[in-house]
C-alpha cells in the first residue's frame, strides 16, 4: 500500500512538472516577441525602442539558459508569483484564485447533483434489470448524452427563467443563480454515473458469494446492502474523479453562456486576448488540481477494492 502511494505520488509530481514545462514553453511557440508584448501592454503608443527591449530582456534574465529560466519561473509560480496579466496589468494569481473557487463550487455542485440522482437511479435499475422502471431510467439517462450543453442551457433558461421566472438567467450571485449552470453541467455525468452504477450492481449481484451470504442466513435485503451495493459502487470512485478533472476544464461553455466568472471563462478570455501569463497560470493550476484529484481517487479505489493490489499483510 505504502509503495503504491509513493509510486503514485511520484507520477503525480512528474505529470505536473512535465505539463508545466510545456506551458512554460508556450511563449516560444506563439507568434510575436513576448518582450515586445510586455512593453506594449505597459506603455501606450506603437513605437517601441529597441534598447528598451534589450534592457527588459536583460532584467528578465531571458539570456540565461532555458533550464535556469524554467526553474526560476517554476519557483516563482509555486510561491504565488504567476506574473502580471497583459490585459489587466494585475497579478495573475489574484484573478486565477477567485475564478478557481467559483469553478470548484460549480463543479462540486454538479457532481453532487449527479451523484444524488444517479446513485438511487442506478441502484434501482441495477437491482431489477429488464423491468419497466429499469428501461425507463436507462432510456432517459442515455438520452441525456445526446443533449449538448449549448442546447440544453438556453432551453433551461427559457423554461425556468423566462417562462416560470423562478431562477435568474445568468450571473453568479446566490445559490439560485447556481442552479441552472450546475444542472446543465450535471446532465452528462448523470448519464454516465447511472449506467456505471447499474452495470456495477448487476455484476455484483451475479457474484457467487451473494447466494453464499443468503445461505449464512442473511435476508435478501441485508445481502444486497452488505454484499451487493458496496461492491457495485467500487468502480464509481475512479469515474467520479475522471469527471471532476474533466469538468474543471470542460465548464467553459456553461460559464460563458451563464456569465459565470469561473476558470473556463477566464481562460477563454485569456486566449481570445492573447494574455499569455494568465493562460499559463490558469492551465498549470487546473492541471495540478486535475492530476491531484485523479491520484486521490486511485488511493480511494485502492482502499475500497482490496483485490486491486497488495498481498498478505
Amino acid at each position, binding site marked *: 500500500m505504502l509503495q503504491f502511494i509513493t509510486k503514485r505520488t511520484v507520477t503525480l509530481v512528474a505529470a505536473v512538472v512535465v505539463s508545466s514545462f510545456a506551458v512554460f514553453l508556450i511563449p516560444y511557440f506563439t507568434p510575436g516577441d513576448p518582450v515586445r508584448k510586455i512593453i506594449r501592454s505597459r506603455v501606450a503608443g506603437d513605437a517601441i525602442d529597441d534598447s528598451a527591449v534589450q534592457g527588459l530582456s536583460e532584467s528578465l534574465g531571458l539570456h540565461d539558459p532555458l533550464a535556469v529560466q524554467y526553474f526560476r519561473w517554476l519557483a516563482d509560480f509555486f510561491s504565488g508569483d504567476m506574473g502580471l496579466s497583459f490585459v489587466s496589468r494585475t497579478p495573475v494569481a489574484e484573478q486565477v484564485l477567485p475564478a478557481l473557487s467559483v469553478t470548484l463550487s460549480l463543479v462540486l455542485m454538479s457532481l453532487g447533483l449527479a451523484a444524488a440522482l444517479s446513485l438511487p437511479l442506478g441502484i434501482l435499475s441495477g437491482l431489477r434489470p429488464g423491468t419497466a422502471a429499469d428501461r425507463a431510467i436507462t432510456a432517459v439517462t442515455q438520452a441525456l448524452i445526446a443533449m449538448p450543453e449549448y442546447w440544453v442551457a438556453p432551453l433551461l433558461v427559457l423554461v425556468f427563467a423566462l417562462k416560470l421566472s423562478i431562477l435568474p438567467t445568468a450571473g453568479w450571485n446566490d445559490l439560485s443563480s447556481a442552479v441552472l449552470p450546475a444542472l446543465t453541467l450535471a446532465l452528462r455525468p448523470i448519464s454516465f454515473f447511472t449506467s456505471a452504477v447499474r452495470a456495477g450492481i448487476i455484476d455484483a449481484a451475479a*457474484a*457467487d*458469494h451473494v*447466494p*453464499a*451470504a*443468503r*445461505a*449464512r*442466513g*442473511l*435476508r435478501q435485503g441485508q445481502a444486497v446492502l*452488505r*454484499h451487493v451495493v*458496496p*461492491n457495485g459502487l*467500487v468502480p464509481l470512485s475512479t469515474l467520479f474523479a475522471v469527471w471532476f478533472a474533466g469538468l474543471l476544464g470542460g465548464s467553459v461553455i456553461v460559464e460563458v453562456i451563464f456569465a459565470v466568472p469561473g476558470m473556463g471563462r477566464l481562460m477563454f478570455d485569456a486566449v481570445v486576448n492573447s494574455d499569455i501569463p494568465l493562460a499559463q497560470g490558469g492551465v498549470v493550476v487546473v492541471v495540478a488540481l486535475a492530476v491531484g484529484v485523479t491520484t486521490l481517487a486511485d488511493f480511494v479505489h485502492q482502499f*475500497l*477494492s*482490496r*483485490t486491486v493490489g497488495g*498481498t*498478505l*499483510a
Partner: protein
Amino acid sequence: MSPVGTRLVLEGLEVRQASAGTGAPGKRLLSGVSLSVEPGEFLALVGSSGSGKTLTAMSCLRLLPPGLHITGGSITLDGQDLAQAPEHQLNSIRGGRLGMLFQQPKRMFNPNRTIEQHLKEPLRLHAGLRGAKARTKALELLEEVGFADPGKGIRAYPHQLSGGMAQRAMTAVALAGQPGMLLADEPTSALDKVLERQILQLLDRERRERGLGILYITHNIASVAAYADRVLVMNSGSIVEAAPAGELLTRPKTDYTRQLLAAARLAPESRRRPPSRERDILVLDRVGKHFGPRRKLGHAALHDVSLALRRGEILGVLGQSGSGKSTLAKAIVGLETASTGSIARQLDAAAPREATAVQLVFQEPHSAFDPRMTLRTSLQAPLRPHRELSPEERDARIAAAMQEVELDPSLLDKRPGQCSGGQLQRATIARALLLEPQVLICDEATSALDALTQRTILNLLLRLQRERNLSLIVISHDMDVVRYMCDRVAVLLEGQVVEVAETKDFFAAPQHEHSRALVSASIPCRADGQWTVLEAVKT
C-alpha cells in the same frame, strides 16, 4: 450446547424450470428425490456433473437459481416442512440449524470483506454474538479449523488466503451458526489430497463430537469409501441407488453405479510397460523462476529444477497446490521465461516448427476458450500463421483433429458455453494436436472434470500417446491419475524436485518424506480391483 439430533428428510422432491414467459412448469430437473440424513450420519451423494446433486442441496435451503421452482414433495428438517416455510423462518434456519459448505471457496467470499466480517455474520444472526465476544468466538473457530495463526487469518481478505486456507475459513463460517445438519457441496474438489483429508477429518470430528449430520456431495469415490456411512447415487435428477457405503462400493446393483465406480478406480496395473530406453527429448537443467523484484530472491516459484523427458515417455509431476507445477508447465512451453538455467528441446527432425512442437493442455477447459468465438474460429487460430495451407487443407486438418479426439464435427459451430467440460477438454486437446506437437504438457488436464469424463479423457490421451508416439508430461495433484498414466514420477515441493522414480517403485516405496505423506494421503485401491472401506482411515 449445540442442537444435537437434527434430522433432514426429503420426500419426492421435484424441481422444475419455469418455461420462459408463460411461467408454466417446464423441464423437470429433479424428480422424486427422497432421502434422509439421520443425526450424526455421514451421507454421501454421488453422481457425475449435472446429475442434480447441487440442486438438491440448494433446494433444501430454498435458494434455487432464478427460474427454478420446487413443484412437488417435501423437505423436512426436524418435522418442519422447509418447502412450505415462510421466508423469515427460512432465514433463521439457513446458516443456523442447516449450514452449507460450498465448493470453490474463494468465489463464495465477498472479495472486499475480511474473514472476520464474514464470520461475524452468522455469529450475530444465529448465536447473537457481537463485538468483542463475536471476535473471540471467531478466533476460536479459526483455530478449530486449523489456522496456525488465527489473529492473522481473521484480518485476511479472501484473495490473501491459499485455496486450502480459504476452504478452512469457509468451513469455520459454516460451523459458526452451530448447525445440526451440514450440506457439503464438493467441499474438497479444488483441493489436493492432503488438504482434502484435513477438511474431511475436520467434518468427521464435528460429526463424532457433537452429532453433526452431513450430506456430502461429491464425485470423489475414494473419499466416500473412507468416510461415508451410506451412499446415494444420483443420475439425471433421480436417485438410482442407495446402500451402506461398504455394500454399494463392493456390490453395486445398477449399471450406472458400476460405471461410476469403474471410472473412479484407475487401476494401477493397467499400464505395465518397460521403461523407455529412448533418448531425451526435453532436458531441463537447473531451471529457476523468481517472481517480483530481482533483488529479493526470497520468492522462488521454481528452484534448480533438473528433469529429463524421454521420447515416447509419460512423466508425471506430482505436487500440492502452490508447489510450482503450473509455473513449470508455463516455463517448458515458453509462456514464462525461466530466470535461471536452461530448457533444451531435442526434437525429431520432422518437426514442422520448433516453437509449436511443445503444446499445453490447460486445466480449466471453459477458460481456455474465448467465450465469444465458435470452436471453429478458436481452432483456426493456431493454423493462421501457416500460410502454406489452403483453406480446404485447414478445414481438413481441423476435421481430422476433431475425429481424432472423437468429437462430433457439428460441435465446431457451437460456442464454449454450449459445450460440456468434457467436450471442451477434448477440443483443447484437438487444438494442441493441430500443430503436430511432439511433446504435450497436461497441466491438471482432468481435475475439473467428473470421474466418468476424467477417465475417458485420460484414455484418449493414452491412445494419442501410443498412436503418435507423443512424449507426455502429466502435471497433477491426483495420485490416481499419475499412477494410472505415468511411466515415471517427479515430486515437486516448494519449487524443488525432491524425488524422481519409476511409478511402480515410487508407489511401493516413496523415498522422500513429502512423497510418503502424499502416497499415504491418497487412499489406495486394492490391486485386485475391489473397493475396501478403510476403517483405519476413518477413525
